[in-house]
């Protein structure tokens, strides 16, 4: 019997699906309807065997990617799976999760129930299953070889970069140099230099020559991967060559 966590704001659908999983397993299934409740739930229970997470949570600022990352960072051995309708607006977060986290499979909410249960059974027995065919066109054949959670540390070389990212995350609306300077106390020229220093790293994330607005969007999208580095970077900028050979 496996312990399965479902994170989905469509509670009625999730509970119905949980009943089917319980009946077919039998499995012990816990349903959570909010990303904010994931961390407390993980803290108060033994590790789950599988976390099945929806991506779209319109009522929250966090997304399913945050929930998946929270599960992975808390219990790295828990298998991760995405369950989604696979509409256009979840394509980008799904790609992000696919590239950065060890996603065992992607289940379509529109697929026949047998196919959904079959994919989950495969994941529990073998550790992975192919993504649902209707969702495969939104995903590359395999996860990106060069993107990883560790790569996000390269976006925060020192406390100054951390201040810049913090301001980009905290500012409401579009960030400007003036607003960031007012928020952080950094000089305009310093902000400009920090941005220039980060451009090569951002290019690795598919953002060549990123503007402040693009950096802000990226920060919001990748909040869960950036924040651990923002809270504890080194005090002083390192001297000499910042980028190390990969």
């Amino acid at each position, binding site marked *: 019997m496996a312990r399965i966590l479902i994170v989905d704001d469509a509670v009625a659908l999730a509970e119905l699906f949980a009943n089917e999983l319980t009946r077919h397993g039998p499995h012990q299934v816990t349903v959570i309807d909010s990303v904010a409740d994931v961390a407390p739930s993980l803290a108060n229970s033994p590790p789950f065997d599988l976390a099945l997470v929806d991506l779209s949570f319109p009522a929250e600022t966090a997304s399913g990617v945050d929930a998946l990352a929270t599960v992975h960072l808390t219990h790295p051995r828990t298998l991760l799976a995405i369950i989604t309708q696979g509409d256009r607006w979840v394509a980008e977060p799904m790609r992000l999760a696919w590239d950065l986290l060890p996603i065992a499979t992607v289940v379509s909410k529109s697929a*026949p129930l047998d196919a959904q249960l079959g994919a989950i059974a495969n994941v529990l027995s073998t550790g992975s299953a192919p993504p649902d065919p*209707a969702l495969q*066109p939104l995903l590359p054949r395999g996860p990106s070889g060069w993107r990883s959670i560790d790569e996000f540390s390269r976006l925060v070389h020192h406390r100054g970069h951390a201040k810049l990212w913090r301001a980009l995350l905290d500012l409401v609306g579009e960030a400007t140099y003036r607003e960031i*300077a007012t928020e952080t*106390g950094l000089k305009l020229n310093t902000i*400009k230099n920090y941005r220039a220093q980060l451009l090569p790293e951002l290019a690795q994330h598919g953002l060549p020559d990123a503007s402040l607005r693009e950096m802000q969007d990226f920060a919001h999208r990748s909040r869960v991967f950036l924040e651990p580095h923002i809270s504890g970077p080194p005090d002083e900028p390192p001297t000499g060559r910042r980028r190390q050979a990969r």
Partner: protein
Amino acid sequence: MSTHRPPPLSRSEVWVAHLAGEGAWGTGEHPEAAARLAAQVQVAGLIVVLSVMWTLVPERLASSAEPWIPITAAVTTTAALLGVLVRPLLLALGRRRPLSRPTTAALVRLVASTTIYLGIVVVLPGWRAVAVWPLGVAGGADAILTRWALGLPFEGPHWWSTLFRSPVMAGVAAGLAIVVVTDVPAQDTVAVLMLLMALGLALFAAWGTMWLLDASRRRVDERVEDAVRRARHEEHRRRAHWLHDDVCAELQLTSLRLRTGRLAPSHVASELADLDHRLRVRQTDELIASGDARLAELVQPALRRLQAAGVRLLDVPSLDDAHLHLQPHEARLFTRLVGVLVSNAVNAGASAVSLLLQHDDEVIGVTVIDDAGGFPDVPLPPGRGLERLVNELGPGSITIEPTAQGSKVTLRMPYGHELSTPRDRTQVN
């Protein structure tokens, strides 16, 4: 978040930021309309200054004992003006510009501004300097572009009064006082006064330009906000209409058929699956109408339809094959192609299907491989969807190959071509 609030930007920092200019602070992205207008004004101002200067140069040369001095000054000033003209010209043309470092930009622009100022003093002494007030227009446009890039508000009259109380103006006043109290010839005093008047006129032109451009941008912003508000309102109405007409009406129809015995309870699931497919096709139509549809999203309804029909999907495209963005007329044609091929496979009783995509710069190909026992009708039966498509696309657009258990059909459509005639546009819209 910390409660400590860092101090606002210092005045000197803002001045240095202005000296560095928009080139240091802009996003480097394609400029918005207001920025392009400001850049056009800046370009016009600089061109007028150049024209005025070269119109007055012959007169200056004729009256000068040492003509090499004004001609050298004119050439140097022209070079500096052309140098500062490049970036606003690119901006005015809507081209993406490389960004420069603030310190470098500030130094280069300081040298250029000083060269232009000294050049004008030499080439256009006395009253003639008044004629270069368009330089103020160009400077004002440059300053407002920098303020927009930095996110600094334009302070209007406050900025004007601050300027007149600035150390620059104090220096000018002191210089004037020295001229008046010392034994300076009257004609030199007049020349200095004229120069001061030219400076004042240029500053006033700069302030007026900033005020006008900022007001025009705010007005455009208000119009855009208003248009966005109206579009949102219309979109909400459309969504409500769509829910009423399509979703609610379809559900009502299914419910009625169920209650009147025209739909057996055992068929409700397939009826709802069919409704789900029809709604997803509508969703795809909306996506196409938005003007930005990818192959990845366009192929999804067909794959879901095959799944719902109980067909096993052996191979499907990944994002590597399906990342292309299509124009609306291409997207509509593509969905027809996929729809016809998938319908044929389902109607022929396929139990396993592979759907593959191929594309180059000019052609997109869709291949469906099924196990439905082969293609019985070659040539194609007239009047069917496939036959109509092949007639539209041309005889080379289809390839049919038999396989061990069924057939492999590939349809190819043009990609990356604009519609040629208004009639074509009407047909696909």
